[in-house]
């Protein structure tokens, strides 16, 4: 029995060194060489300083910006240190109330737009950090953003198209529009 205990303890320590120290450090080293941009968070930089990430969304509720997915993180939306969904059950009336409030907010920002709201614009994402909305969600907002910014709709459509990705490899996942990059491009357009 004492030999078995010695075997077990030394095996655990050896495996900890191999899989818990060597493996992640080698993986970090190789990843930093091969894919430094992705390994460090796909940061968007301006003048050498990070101003966001392509993969992590930000909170928008100003009518001049495209709004992203509602976020259920606490205490603030899009809290990068507390990723989470709402975990509201499908039949919970709190879910229906929250969705209704979001529909009302979108309507208030864009009076006269009575089209049904695309589902992803009024339902909280799983991570609370979703960087994307569906192309339908972007189309719903194009007229509003163009009007508030006094831009030509076609110009806004052009930017939406630029930041829209189709299904990956033409098959996987869903088409999507990166909200932060789109909004940064909109700001960039008018700062010129």
């Amino acid at each position, binding site marked *: 029995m004492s030999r078995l205990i*010695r*075997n077990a*303890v*030394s*095996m*655990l320590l*050896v*495996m900890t060194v191999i*899989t818990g*120290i060597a493996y*992640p450090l080698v*993986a*970090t080293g190789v*990843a*930093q060489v091969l894919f430094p941009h992705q*390994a460090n*968070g*796909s*940061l968007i930089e301006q003048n050498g300083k990070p101003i*966001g*990430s392509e*993969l*992590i969304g*930000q*909170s*928008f509720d100003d009518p001049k910006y495209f709004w992203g*997915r509602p976020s259920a993180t*606490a205490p*603030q*939306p899009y*809290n*990068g*240190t*507390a*990723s989470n*969904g709402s975990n*509201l*059950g*499908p*039949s919970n*009336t709190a*879910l229906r109330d929250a969705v209704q409030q979001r529909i009302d907010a979108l309507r208030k920002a864009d009076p006269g737009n009575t089209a*049904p709201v*695309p*589902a*992803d614009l009024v*339902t*909280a994402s*799983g991570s609370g950090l979703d*960087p*994307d909305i569906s192309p*339908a*969600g972007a189309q719903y907002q194009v007229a509003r953003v163009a009007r508030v910014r006094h831009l030509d709709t076609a110009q806004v459509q052009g930017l939406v198209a630029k930041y829209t990705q189709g299904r*990956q*490899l033409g*098959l*996987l*996942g*869903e088409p*999507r529009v990166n909200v932060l990059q789109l909004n940064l491009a909109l700001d960039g357009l008018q700062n010129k």
Partner: protein
Amino acid sequence: MTANDFLQIGIFLVVLLLLIKPMGSYMAHVFADEPNRLTRIGAGFERLVYRVCGIDAQEDMGWKHYAIAMLLFNVCGMVLVYAFQRLQGYLPLNPQHFPALSPDLSINTAISFITNTNWQAYSGESAMSYLTQMAALAVQNFLSAATGIAVAIAVIRGFARKTVKGIGNFWVDLTRTTLYVLLPISFLLALLLVSQGVIQNLKPYVDVPVVQTTTYANPVTDAAGNPVKDASGNPVTKPAQLTTETLPMGPAASQVAIKMLGTNGGGFFGANSAHPYENPTPFSNFLEMLAIFLIPGGLCLTFGQMVGDKRQGWAILVTMLVIFIPLAIGVTAAEQAGNPILHTLSIDQHASGLQSGGNMEGKETRFGIAASSLFTAVTTAASCGAVNNMHDSLTPLGGLVPMWLIQLGEVIFGGVGSGFYGMIAFAVVAVFIAGLMVGRTPEYIGKKVEAYEMKMASLAVLIPCALVVICTAIAVMTPTATATVANPGAHGFSEILYAVTSATGNNGSAFGGLSANIPFWNVMLGVCMFWARYTLAIAMLALAGSLAAKKHVPASAGTLPTHTPLFVTLLASVVIVVGALTFLPALALGPIAEYLMSVH
């Protein structure tokens, strides 16, 4: 359901089958009792490991010896994981200066990771140091997976060997699994995931300025950190503003790779594979799903090859697929149909070329309905438990599927190793039932199934069932437990049932609204995870030991062939009947009641 939904399920299955075949045959080579080309390549390093650990690699262990080594090794791992969590404040690689976790949470997490469950009552990015993630949690991702595979290989040897006492050497099986199977594939997968955007660094978290200042209602807390409530019981808030956002960092990809491949499922971040840094693209999602099924699927074929009749392996694999495919389609159809309580609002839940539509609460835009639903079915059929969408927000029938898949005993692919030996327990029960029909001693893979084998197989089948039902009953009678549910009505019961089911099935996913970080849940779910994992493994090792000692019986006219569609049907029926009879009453109170109320 849309054509694309079917297409994404179809592509997944085709690629999976293409990968499973070489995987199964590769593992058969790794564990072959004779030396082969592969084990010669790494032999030097492998021998060094044995020498350092004082292990005699030639020793052939009887089942009791094997079981004690396995249990001892896992308990040592538990102590180490516990120590890392309690001491992380004093240890390096902790750039966010996270303090020690509470004792009950630490013991829960330690049991959770050694049992391949990865139930998480903590959120990685706000609780665990990089060192704890790498050197405690990810290590157990490897070792709990290797433990499961080792036990499965020992069970296969029970069938393959004739009239011997030994079923292999636990240390050798563990070492070979880790060095030849888990490490190389994890490394490759980690790099593929990084290429898609999964992070892999040791940097502190990064603050970035936000484009639009975030205004939000910040809850007011008193001196003790408890939320202040007003006269009517609502939390008091005050308006707050933020001009920066914090981006979490860390060595995620290396841990995510083994978390999928080893069917562990413990997320590096709280949102698990829904987090854009843990699963950034549809392709990373596809890789993660494949990684979950790769080894559990492959082991079926390893079995066929090692017992010298490949058809036996295919029969087990086909049985798994026969149950998996309709359930995967079921959850997709339920989610694509959308949430009925939102139908009266001005919301568009229809699929079109511009959106996936459906029930998007708790789902990520890049995955939509198809890639989220398939992930849900895969992660619960296998005892992985990683999630790329929040299961608590699935539609009632969409949520029924993952819960029932776990309740079937985690044998539809199941955990690496544990899914296979769990299915073998069902196969033994199936041949026994067939034997009863014709009044003949049943045989499986040339071994007579007698009273001892039946006892062990029955224990393996019934212990998880009993644990789930009894512990759910205890929980719903305990006010401190029922106070932790987040949703009212039938769904609240579903949260409790899912938690106990997930812990017992060593799955680890959750209806996440449940506030599980209280001593009651930490202790009870810890007990469920531990008991289910080790009683099953030990019962199956006992079965293996008894089988290895038996002589081979040649098939006769009275032998039920176990590679035919008839046997596949019989085996699938046994799995479904046991799962349905045990859990239908409980499911009727949870998801089924909720479904009937929502369509009413």
